[in-house]
């Protein structure tokens, strides 16, 4: 079946049969593992071990994970939601202010380049290198095993992305608009808050969604700065995997639950995810 000429000029790259096979394989390869764990989460542990297919679906794994008396998973979800929501709000506030400040005001080069370079380096460095001093500091402050410690550290790891991404959005706002506001008697902060921020709303949404997901997904910090009371969803999943007798069925159910935000976002946000992951280097 020849593909009709599409509007885009990429038809010159029109894929032959091998191209279509490659794409079909790729789609299957991406989706396959998700389907596998989805089916596993609806199987009894015994059905998993026996490799049964077809099987009688059961919700017992989800019931065990969410409602079981020996499971803290509901609490873990609450912890994750609280930490992700608060750290996202703080990262957005501090990040938007900083990005706008660097964009709008004439800071000396050592301030602006120093700040941006510093955030870039700490975005690239493995977070494991900072966990030691964080652990010591939070213990000394009495903040070990609190949500506050997790929120603060998650703000830190999300700030570079927020600042770099929002900078690209602020840059696209015509300076005339802000100047007109000044002429009308609007102070610099009011102009930022009432005029620039609403115009940069798509950027704020993009950065906010990404910050939320990164915080929800974050594992090593939560692993080392929390214990039973404040553990988040990824920590709980790792516990399932590390028990002497691995609870495969419950691990599968918990993993499926943990992917819900990602699945929702898959449909909401497409382009900005890549631009966020590359700090705005790719639009």
């Amino acid at each position, binding site marked *: 079946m020849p593909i009709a000429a599409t509007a885009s000029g990429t038809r010159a790259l029109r894929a032959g049969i091998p191209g279509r096979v490659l*794409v079909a394989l790729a789609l299957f390869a991406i989706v396959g593992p998700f389907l*596998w*764990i989805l089916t596993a989460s609806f199987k009894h542990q015994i059905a998993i071990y026996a490799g049964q297919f077809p099987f009688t679906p059961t919700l017992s794994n989800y019931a065990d994970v969410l409602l079981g008396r020996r499971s803290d998973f509901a609490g873990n979800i609450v912890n994750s939601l609280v930490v992700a929501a608060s750290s996202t709000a703080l990262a957005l506030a501090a990040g938007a202010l900083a990005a706008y400040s660097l964009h709008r005001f004439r800071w000396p080069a050592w301030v602006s380049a120093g700040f941006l370079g510093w955030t870039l380096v700490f975005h690239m460095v493995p*977070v494991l290198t900072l966990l030691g001093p964080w652990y010591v500091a939070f213990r000394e402050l009495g903040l070990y095993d609190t949500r506050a410690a997790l929120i603060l550290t998650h703000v830190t790891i999300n700030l570079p992305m927020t600042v770099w991404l929002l900078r690209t959005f602020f840059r696209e706002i015509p300076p005339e608009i802000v100047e007109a506001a000044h002429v009308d008697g609007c102070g610099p902060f009011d102009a930022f808050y009432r005029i620039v921020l609403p115009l940069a709303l798509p950027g704020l949404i993009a950065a906010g969604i990404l910050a939320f997901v990164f915080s929800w997904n974050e594992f090593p910090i939560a692993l080392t700065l929390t214990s039973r009371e404040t553990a988040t969803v990824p920590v709980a999943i*790792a516990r399932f995997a590390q028990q002497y007798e691995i609870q495969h069925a419950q691990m*599968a159910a918990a*993993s499926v639950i943990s992917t819900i935000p990602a699945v929702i976002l898959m449909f909401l946000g497409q382009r900005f995810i890549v631009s966020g992951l590359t700090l705005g*280097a790719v639009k």
Partner: protein
Amino acid sequence: MRNAADVPVTRRVPRPAQDVVARLVNRSFRYWSLLPAVLIFAALTLYPLLNLMRMSVSTIDFAQGATLWTFTPLRNLEALRADDVLRPAVVNTVVFVVVSVAIEMVLGVALAIGVAGLARAKRWVRTVAILPILVPPVAIGSMWKLMYNYDFGIFNQALVAVGAMPVNWLGSTNIALASVIAVDVWHWVPFVFLILFAAVEGIPPDLLEAAHVDGASRGQTLRLVVLPLLRPAIVVAFLFRTILAFKVFDEVFLLTAGGPGTSTELVNLHLYKVFFEQNRLGYGAMLSLAVIAAIVAFLLVSRRAALAVRT
């Protein structure tokens, strides 16, 4: 400050106190706008970095909730010499980064070019490709741990079904690293694909038409027109992948935790173990500083290289 009851009435007449605050906020905005972010970074990266330096020459013990610091610079250096795991960890990390990034680049570029020619499949692939990037890495780890399982994982079920011997994917020293790399490739090919796909879509159609009119074959168009135009996007994808690959921790922690033996031990896993399993905070700090120095060096070198490629 503001009384809720009288807001509607006095809205148009600013109160003096409110006015002063508003003016202060506005006047000084230029100076305080950068402050929150700077404070957060100073407290949570600059201070820890300085602390790392202090820790790296100390031994730290926790005794009854208090922390005891002793100045022992030579002890940590000696620990470095006695550390048998460090060398395999560095070697494995380099192998992991080089091999997985190379495979991801080739597959990602091929997929982007392959998909671009398919009008209808495009949107689907682009939507689905986002999923592995957004899902918690821990969930990916547990997913593949199930699939790699010796007794009931899908790969061994398939092998047994065709009459072959099952493979110990994560438990054999020869295969474990390759198995872990395969998971990383699965995880991140979509990322390379998405960057490159946007670049392929951005190629001006006239150029491809012109190549066609001039009688260029498909292969020639790809090699002489498309790939050179994709070069900036390839550089960006490559740099980000290399740095992200070096940060890998979650999936490997779940899949093998570095084993069997040291066959999948990575620098990050080793750091974690030194800090939190062996409780050697001083030695861990020294390793952390070395890792940070290596990353900064890589950033400086790659900046040069990227500039050279662009011109």
